[in-house]
């Protein structure tokens, strides 16, 4: 009986899971700092630490730079991590209902693309 109950519960759960997990538009995935699961949980701590070092001490660590994160993870379609609902940052933050403040000031656009656009002007 217990077994049946759980398998029924599982059947109910799975489709919900499949429908809700965010499908992200990732320009370039892969691991460069830590593995995906670790980054999913801890990226905010890395960014916070790096921002204080970079701004206040002038220590600009390439691997922990928001700009470098964006350079890879921005969509190949619009060069952005925030432009659409499935963009790299927005996708999960929406799903987790966590407010994304970084881009009130920081650019969400791939720097190489931004520069190319400016130089074309």
């Amino acid at each position: 009986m217990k077994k049946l109950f759980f398998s029924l519960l599982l059947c109910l759960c799975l489709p919900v899971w499949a429908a809700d997990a965010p499908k992200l538009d990732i320009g370039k995935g892969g691991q460069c700092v830590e593995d995906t699961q670790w980054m999913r949980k801890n990226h905010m701590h890395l960014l916070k630490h790096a921002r204080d070092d970079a701004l206040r001490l002038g220590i600009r660590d390439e691997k922990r730079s928001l700009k470098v994160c964006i350079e890879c993870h921005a969509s190949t379609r619009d060069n952005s991590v925030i432009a659409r609902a499935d963009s790299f940052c927005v996708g999960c933050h929406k799903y987790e209902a966590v407010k994304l403040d970084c881009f009130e000031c920081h650019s969400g656009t791939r720097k190489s693309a931004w520069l190319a656009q400016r130089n074309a002007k």
Partner: protein
Amino acid sequence: MSDMDMNRRNFLKTSVGAAAVAIAPGMLLYSVAQGKSEGASSKVRWGMLIDTNQCKPGCNDCVTACNNENGLSGETKPTDSQWIRKIDIKDISTGREISLPMMCQHCEHPPCVDVCPTNASMKRADGIVLVDKHRCIGCRYCMMACPYKARSFVHEPLTGQNPDVPRGKGTVESCTLCVHRIDVGGKSACSEACPNKAIMFGDLNDANSEISRKVHSVASVQVRADLRLNPGVRYQGL
């Protein structure tokens, strides 16, 4: 707890959700020019020497270059950010007129840093005065304290910022001496843009730098030197 909640938790707890993330270890980063990793050094004192004899009235090239570099609109309404301004002054007794650019003077003893309640306004080891916008609450005390009227407040939401120059509504900002360029070995955009070479950028602490040799041999002054803030920006021919 509903199924939905459980799923949200699992998404963070397990790697099931990684289905959406293509895993391919060992991928290389695109190369983006970043700074040195050792950070700003107190052996360095960045500064500028502005030769007012070379600065032409009516020329606005340094201001335009600053606006382009840092993504300012270039508008001059009271609510628009201005990091550098051209100022024309006239000596009434002699009639002599001069034109000069004014920006944050990167004081050694900056009053803007003294008054900041959140430690957002700060001086880097190499003398560059910055606003840490992560901490700035937009109280604007620093704008009041600055004797040079060098700071601006961002009143409206911004988009399309330079990836190297984050700026945003509700924070105070001012000339950064183009810190993002300095950290990759460059110099300030205004000094590079001046067609008359009126702005010299360099390290005031390095006895062999061009700027050090020049301030050693020609007369230059600091604006409002009586305040004893020891600005890093000096003027010639004032």
